[in-house]
C-alpha cells in the first residue's frame, strides 16, 4: 500500500472518506454502474484502505460520467465522484504525459463539441 498515494488522492479530492457509513446509495444511484468493475461505494472504501493502485489499473476510472448524482444524493456528503476523479488524476499524473498532442486539436474541433471535453480528453483517452 502506497501511503503517499492515498494522501495524494485524499488531498486532491478534498474528501473525508471516513464520513462514509457504507449505505451504498452512491452505487444505487449511479447510471454507469453496470459499466464499472469497481463501483462508487467501493472507490470510497478502497481509498480508505489505501488500495488505490488496483483502482488506478481498472477501466472503472474512465467509466464515471462525473454526473454527480452520487454527490447530490449521498446522505453524508462524502462526494464519491470527487474520489473517482482524484484516482483518475493520480493515474494520469503517474503516466507522466498527456494523451493528446495540442497539434491534434484543430482537426478535431467542431461546433458541437464543448471545449471542456477537449481539455478533459487530454487526460482521459489514450489514442
Amino acid at each position, binding site marked *: 500500500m502506497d501511503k503517499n498515494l492515498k494522501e495524494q488522492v485524499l488531498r486532491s479530492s478534498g474528501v473525508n472518506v471516513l*464520513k462514509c*457509513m*457504507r*449505505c*451504498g*446509495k*452512491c*452505487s*444505487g*444511484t*449511479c447510471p454507469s*454502474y*453496470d459499466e464499472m468493475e469497481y*463501483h462508487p*461505494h467501493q472507490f470510497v472504501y478502497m481509498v480508505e484502505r489505501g488500495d488505490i493502485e488496483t483502482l488506478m489499473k481498472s477501466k472503472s476510472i474512465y467509466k464515471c460520467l462525473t454526473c454527480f*448524482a452520487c454527490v447530490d*444524493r*449521498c*446522505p*453524508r*456528503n462524502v462526494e464519491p465522484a470527487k474520489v473517482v476523479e482524484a484516482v483518475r488524476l493520480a493515474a494520469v499524473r503517474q503516466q507522466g504525459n498527456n494523451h493528446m498532442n495540442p497539434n491534434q486539436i484543430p482537426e478535431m474541433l467542431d461546433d458541437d463539441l464543448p471545449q471542456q471535453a477537449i481539455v478533459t480528453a487530454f487526460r482521459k483517452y489514450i489514442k
Partner: protein
Amino acid sequence: MKRIGVFVCHCGTNIAATVDVKAVAEALGHEPGVVISQDYQYMCSESGQNLVKNAIKEHKLTGVVVCSCSPRMHENTFRKAAASAGLNPYLVEIANIREQCSWIHKDIASATEKAIILGKAAVAKVHLNSPLTAGESPVVKRALVIGGGIAGIQTALDIAEAGFDVDIVEKNPTIGGKMAQIDKTFPTLDCAACILTPKMVEASQNERITIHSFSEVADVKGFVGNFTVKIKKKARFVDETKCTGCGLCTEKCPMKKVPNEFNMGLDNRTAIYIPFAQAVPKVATIDPNYCMMLQKGKCGICSSVCSVGAIDYKQEDKIIEQQYGAIVVATGFNPINLDKYDEFAYNQCPDVVTSLELERLMNAAGPNGGTLLRPSDKTHPHKIVFVQCVGSRCDDSKGKPYCSKICCMYTAKHAMLIREKYPDTEVYVFYIDVRTPGKNFDEFYRRAVEQYNVHYIKGMVGKVTPRSDGKIDVQASDLLANEQLHIDADMVVLAAAIEPDKTARPLATMLTTQMDTNDFFTEAHPKLRPVESATAGIFLSGACQGPKDIPETVAQASAAAAKAIGLLVKNSITCNPCVAHSDELMCNGCSSCEKVCPYGAITYVDKEFRMPDRTTAIRRVASVNPAVCQGCGACTVACPSGAMDLNGFSNSQIMSEVDAICK
C-alpha cells in the same frame, strides 16, 4: 484571619494520573490562613468525608477548600459533611481540578501548576465567604403535563395515582398523540388503539386529571414549586361542556373536502369534526379555515342539527391561569418533511408513502377500512419496497445526524404484517444496518426474514422513478451481491426520520430549559438524571428528549412522574441562598437590573432614607425577591453603581479569585 483546611482528592487515577496531588497539597499548605492541607484517594468516600469532618473539629476550621471534581458532582456532598461537623455549608469551596484540569491536560507539570492556581483561587475566595442560611418556599401541589400523547397520559396517570392534581395541555382536539395513529405495536403485534384508548379513558375519568385539549401553553413564570402558567384554550366553536359527541353535526356538515390530518391527509373529513371514534374528549371541533359559517357567514347546519345547542360560532380563544409545583414536558415527535428528498419521488407519486401513512392505510379505521390499497388507483400492491434511514444518519446539510431508532423495528413489523395478510405480496427492505437492540427485538426481525421471507437487501435506494404504466422503478445497489437492482414496485414506503415537535423550541424558551442542536430537550445528566431538565422543577417525558419506542416512552413517563411526585410531596423546598441583593445606599434607581432579570425577581420600591442633614428623603431602590431569584448574576453585571451583589459569588470574592490566579 480564617482557619482554612485544604483537601486534595486523587479521584483514583482520574486526577492523580495527571496532577501531582501531593505537590498541590504541599503548595496550598503555604497559602495564608491554611492550617491543614491533605490529600486522599477518594475524598467523596465515607472515610474521605470523615477526614474533612474531623479536621473541621480538630483544627477549628472556619473555611474548607476541596480540590476535586466539578461542584456539580460533589459540592452538595461536602457541604453536607461540613454542616454535620458544625460548619456553615456555604463556607465550603470546590476547586475543580478534574473536569477543568486533569481530564483536559496531558502534561503532569503544567496540570499540577494549574491545579495549584485553581486551589489558590478557591482559598482566596473562601477568605471572603460568609455563612449563608437557605430560606424555604412553599410547593404548589399540582402538576402540569405538556402534551397528551402516551408519554403525557402515562405521566399524568402516575401523578394522579399518587394523589396530586394534574392538568394535561394538548394542542390537538384529542389526546392520544402518535400512538393513536399507529395500527399495531412491535414486537408483540398487539393493536395500539386497544392498549392506548383504555388509558385515554382512564385519564379523562380520573377526577384528579384535567384535560385541556385544543390548548397551548402561552406563558410560564415562576420557579420550582411555584410556576404560574397561562394556558390558551383555542376556540373550537363548540361548547365542550354541552357537546355529547353524538357526531350528528359531522354527518350533516356540507363541507366534506377537508384533508383529514388523523389519516395523514389520505382521506377527507368535514369542517366540523371529531378526529377519531375513541377521541378524548369526544367533542366536536370546527375548523375555521373551512367552515362556511365562519368564513362567509352562511350555513349554520351544525348549529341547527345540534340537539344540545353546543355550537357557538362566537367562541373566542380564552386564557386561563393556574399555579403548578412541577411541569412535565411531553411534546413528542413528528416525521420530518420529505420535500428535500426528490430522489424518492414522495411529492410526485401518491404510491410513495411514509411509514406513518402506511399505518393509516393498514388500519381498520383508516381510509380503506384496513385493506391495503394503493392510494393512486385503489388496487392491491403486489410488490412493496421499504427504504430505511430516509433523512436519518445524515450529514447536517442533508437531514438529521442521529439514528431515529424506531424505524428498523416498525419496518420489520410492516413487512411482516403485509406478508401475513397478503402472502402473494413480495416485500423488499433496503437497509444500511438493521438495529434491533431491545427485548425480543432481534428475534422479531429474524422472524420477518426467516418465517415471512421478507427480502432484506443491504444498500440504500438511490432513485425512485414513477413510470407511466403505474409501476414504480426502484433503483438500488445490493452491496453484498455487488450488483445494481431495478425493482418494479407497486408501492414504496419511506421510513422518514423523526424530529421533535415544532412547538418544543418556543416552549423551551418559556421554560428556560436547554435543548440540543436537534431541538431535543437536554436532560440534567445523560446517565444519572435522564428525566430531569437542568431547570429545577421541569421534567422530561418521552420522545421530546430523544427518539424512543413505546415501552421506553412509558418507562420514562413513569420515571418523570416519580420525580415530579418526589417534588410535590414536599410542603416546602429549600431555596438557594446564593441570591442577589442590593445595597440600598448605593442603588441609584436606574432600573438596569430590573430589565435584565430573566426571572422577574427585581422590583423597585420607594423607601424613606435619613439624609446626612437629618432630613428624610424618599428614594427609589431595587428590591430582590429571594424566592424568585435564581442567582444567575445578570443584575450584578448590569448594575452601573455596583449596588447589586450576589451572595456566595460577591464581586469582591470573584475579584480576589482573579487576583489569586494572576498573582
